[in-house]
């Protein structure tokens, strides 16, 4: 059993939780994820690690309430327990000196971006962060990311903060200005990652994306999370979650992520969430 030590409401549908999981905290590295199960009848869901504290033995996850499990998770409070919390899973990010890096986070994808931003800054990179959200209210971790960024740009769909438009607009502008960019990383909605990859492709800028497909075990056993990367089938749980953004078949990923949409609705309706 894994105790919830802290809970923070980031917005109407986004919540932060600090979970006591010393073994996971000890090994966690930026870019990795965990799988949790709320209770005996629960589904196993993957969540990317937003932060960790090795000394206190805690792991932070930030999640958007989109399905039955995340909605149920959102109703839990400090002092409650999760039945299962396993990790860290997947390959950690390559933290190396690229020179200038552009770190792009969209919506709840900003959460997993944060520890990677921090580690890349510590490694001595010049970090430009671009954070995008539907509106100002849904924007998260701005202060935290700012602390580790040399430049920070905000975009919102409705213009309530920063540039009105998309993260890709800012990226294009940076490229047009002639910035030498060593690496671009994008984490967020699949469509955002696809667009970012399309922007950088003609310039051959190394682009990494972090994928979050449907998973069951998270140890390479079921293949539910398979994604097509450069025509090869990869398992996001053990080979990823980060892949070469120019090679991912985003359309197939979007399709596979919709596999259980109807069932999810049914489960939500039944649970009254």
């Amino acid at each position, binding site marked *: 059993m894994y105790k919830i030590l802290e809970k923070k409401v980031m917005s109407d549908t986004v919540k932060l939780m600090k979970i006591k999981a010393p073994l996971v905290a000890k090994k966690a590295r930026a870019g990795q994820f965990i799988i949790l199960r709320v209770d005996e009848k629960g589904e196993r869901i993957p969540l990317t690690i937003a932060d960790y504290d090795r000394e206190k033995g805690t792991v932070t996850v930030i999640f958007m309430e989109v399905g039955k499990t995340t909605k149920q998770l959102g109703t839990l409070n400090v002092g409650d327990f999760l039945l*299962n919390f396993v990790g860290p899973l997947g390959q950690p990010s390559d933290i190396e000196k690229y020179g200038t890096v552009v770190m792009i986070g969209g919506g709840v994808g900003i959460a997993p971006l944060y520890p990677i931003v921090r580690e890349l800054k510590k490694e001595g990179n010049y970090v430009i962060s671009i954070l995008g959200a539907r509106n100002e209210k849904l924007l998260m971790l701005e202060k935290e990311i700012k602390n580790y960024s040399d430049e920070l740009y905000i975009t919102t769909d409705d213009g309530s903060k920063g540039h009105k438009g998309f993260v890709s607009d800012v990226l294009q502008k940076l490229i047009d200005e002639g910035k030498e960019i060593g690496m671009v990383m994008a984490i967020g909605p699949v469509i955002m990652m696809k667009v970012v990859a399309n922007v950088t492709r003609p310039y051959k800028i190394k682009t990494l994306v972090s994928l979050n497909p449907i998973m069951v075990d998270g140890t*390479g056993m079921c293949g539910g999370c398979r994604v097509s990367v450069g025509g090869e089938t990869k398992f996001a749980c053990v080979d990823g979650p980060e892949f070469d953004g120019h090679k991912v*078949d985003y359309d197939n990923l979007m399709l596979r992520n919709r596999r259980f949409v109807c069932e999810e609705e049914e489960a939500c309706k039944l649970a009254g969430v």
Partner: protein
Amino acid sequence: MAVRKTKHKMPEQSPKERIKNFNEVPYGYDEKTAIEEAKRCLQCKKRPCVNGCPVEIDIPDFIKHIAEGDFDKAVEVLKTKTNLPAVCGRVCPYESQCEGECTLKKIGEPVGIGRLERFLADYERKKGVKIPKKAKKTGKKVAVVGAGPAGLTCAGDLAKMGHSVSIFEALHDPGGVLMYGIPEFRLPKEIVKAEVGYIKGLGVEINYDVVVGKTISVDEIMNDYDAIFIGTGAGLPRWLRIPGENLDGVYSANEFLTRVNMMKAYQFPNYDTPVKIGKIVATFGAGNVAMDCARTSLRLGAEKSYIIYRRSEVEMPARDEEIEHAKEEGVIFHLLTNPVRFIGDDKGILKQVECIKMRLGEPDESGRRRPVPIEGSNFKVKIDTALVAIGQSPNPLVPKTVKGLKIGKWGNIETDEDGRTNIPGIFAGGDIATGAATVILAMGAGKRAARAIDRYLKIKK
């Protein structure tokens, strides 16, 4: 009195009934039938059945006690060699092991050894499982990676020898393939839990949610333990490698069975994990796992459940009993048929599979006749779900993270007969060492490794 030539039948659910539920198919022997069946045993001097048993059970001895009606004594004999009798009594391929060697086969059917083992295990479970007196503590600590058949057996035997044993399991339930792979109607999960309860009763500690290689490394474990046994199984699904395999509707057998068995998707939405199969399901492959997939599909409400297999009936690797059960339940077999590509609609949802007819050519390296495509014989079959059950490879997660560990060409950990790897103190067994095989072979490997570990600990200062 002449010996009865045929085994006593186990009563079972009728095919029409059982495809509507996930309850176990056979009911098992009652006491009277068990005694009658046990009396068929000739108690021959050569005991060939024992040689056929990977875990060396003293078969004629326990059968003798059943025949005498002394079930408790029979259980005692059984449990000295196997920690998981209720499992073995259900999923062992007896026909090619103990029963395959039975002297009675010269005149008819062998003694129903598997059925008798199952009877005893069920008898004991109903009565309350007795935990044997614990052995004197040796003060040695052994770590076991993976709570599947190999790991559980190894752990149980080591505990009986007086070592303290901790199992590290990646998933949230024990049992490995017994839990995620084999369906409820063949091996009820309550039975797996009861057998694991016995192992725990021996003093074995099980730590869940620990992915060795990720949460903790083998090196770290070796700092705290005197020896380690790796039994992480063959968890890596193989694919057909044909176009369309990533369409919505194509599952690996592992994903499908894990959803249904371990996550209990057959009780969705009471349980949260979903599975959807539509009306027509095609399973590719013809081993036990494929039969499990095809039969599970019927129980989930499939109107048609196909087995599509590139060779012919005689080459099918599944046990006869499984094939028989599948046929009785209405599974349709398309043999000498190989899939060429999956076809989806404009939304990427699986709609059809294109197949080609095969014929058998010259024998290949497995000794089975090689299937050869018949050109121009392509045809399309309408399907809603495809289940790929063509085998699994050893899970690379642990082998890849141990420096210097000798790995075979299939990604398996190389060991000797007794599970020793090239690194002293590190042992391995079951599917991770041999590639995908059976539950009982994994148990046999766990047993031999336990003995080797015991010897190693005695020599090691």
